[in-house]
């Protein structure tokens, strides 16, 4: 008698969760309507913001992959003193409010700081530039890539690297030819997830680089300047663009067919 009750409660809870996730977004899209979405797609400022968002997220992801993949291998394969602290530090941006990350970046990279001055001597400015947007995206979203890549690499049996070495590979060639290709699906899925997260970042970016506006900052700007009605079309386009990316993430995460002993 209790089993149907438990199953029914589980179904009800799951339905409420789905409703909580889907209804607000669905309502937003419905309130905007096809006409509003079509008009938004002709909004030059919105299109520019979308392009800037995509370009900065791509640059941030490439930086994270370049630096994060060796780091993920180290965390997956090696034990060393301070590893726990390093992992905690890497995952900190996932739990700290993102405006706090933005403040930290301002403190570290503003023109008045030593690092900011050093960057300025090379002609690079961070605050209020696309470089600042990329820095904020990396700071907030790179932990997603590193933790995902670490798990993907850890799932590749380390003994396969030993096998590759008996076949003539030095250690790094074994990693490059065996471990990374074997972990490829997980690495790609982690990179896509990071890219998706970077495109939606707001809290750190709004402090580091309000201008030029990425899509999330534009939506906020339209709301605070013109009100809900003007912000809805921007929000609807962002929802649809994000949904498309998430479908891609799910496709890259899909398990392979067949059984691998």
């Amino acid at each position, binding site marked *: 008698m209790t089993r149907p009750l438990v199953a029914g409660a589980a179904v009800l809870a799951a339905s409420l969760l789905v409703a909580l996730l889907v209804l607000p977004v669905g309502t937003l899209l419905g309130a905007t309507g096809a006409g509003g979405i079509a008009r938004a797609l002709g909004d030059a400022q919105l299109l520019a913001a979308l392009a800037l968002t995509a370009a900065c997220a791509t640059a941030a992801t490439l930086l994270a992959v370049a630096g994060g993949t060796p780091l993920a291998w180290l965390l997956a394969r090696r034990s060393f003193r301070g590893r726990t602290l390093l992992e905690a530090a890497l995952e900190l941006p996932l739990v700290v409010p993102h405006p706090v990350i933005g403040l930290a970046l301002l403190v570290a990279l503003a023109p008045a700081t030593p690092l900011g001055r050093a960057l300025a001597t090379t002609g690079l400015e961070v605050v209020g530039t696309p470089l600042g947007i990329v820095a904020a995206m990396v700071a907030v979203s790179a932990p997603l890539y590193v933790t995902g890549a670490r798990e993907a690499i850890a799932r590749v049996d380390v*003994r396969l690297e030993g096998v590759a*070495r*008996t076949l003539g590979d*030095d*250690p790094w060639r074994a990693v490059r*030819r065996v471990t990374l290709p074997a972990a490829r699906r997980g690495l790609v899925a982690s990179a896509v997830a990071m890219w998706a997260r970077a495109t939606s970042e707001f809290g750190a970016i709004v402090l580091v680089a309000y201008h030029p506006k990425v899509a999330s900052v534009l939506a906020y700007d339209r709301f605070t300047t013109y009100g809900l009605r003007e912000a809805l079309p921007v929000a609807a386009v962002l929802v649809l663009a994000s949904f498309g990316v998430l479908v891609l993430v799910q496709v890259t995460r899909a398990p392979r067919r067949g059984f*691998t002993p």
Partner: protein
Amino acid sequence: MIRLDALALDAGPVSLRALDLVVPTGATGALLGPVGAGKSSLLECVAGVRAPRAGRVIIGDDDVTSWPPERRRAGVVFQRGWLFEHLDVRGNVAYGARDAATLDAAVRATGVDALYPRAVATLSGGERQRVALARALATGPRVLLLDEPWAAMDAALHAAMRDAVRAWQRAHGTTTLLVTHDPSDLGDDVVARLELPAPPHGAPRAA
């Protein structure tokens, strides 16, 4: 030649020491012992993927004890084959091939081209071992280290692959070290044996 000089190693709960063995060039030696005795771990020491606690490993005229695996030119067939799942059969066999001629010879010796271009995931256990053997031979090794290479094969394939290894040894003078439980593998060509003692608390339980 393969020579073990007072080799000592730790293999999980088992601690082995004072292991001595000499397998002349071109001949076959056998590692024997019950399950959990450390035979595979000992083979890994000779291959260089596991470090011994003490003693020496000599291959040919070289003390390879401190050499990394990629320098030793030991062709290894591990107990589970350990094929690369992201490559097909052809890619696995060719992975560390010394040159086109050696690759071709290894393919002919094992008949593994019958399995091209299948994905590794579709292979049976015996087929995986066959591919692993071809992959090891394709490197043109100076020694062959075989960890129960025929365990997953049927009788016909077992006999064919055993004969293929013997023919390869005759043609190339390759010294072989074999881990086996099968008495039929201990023929007249096995000139040296090292029997490892039973682990202190009996065979490990199956998982």
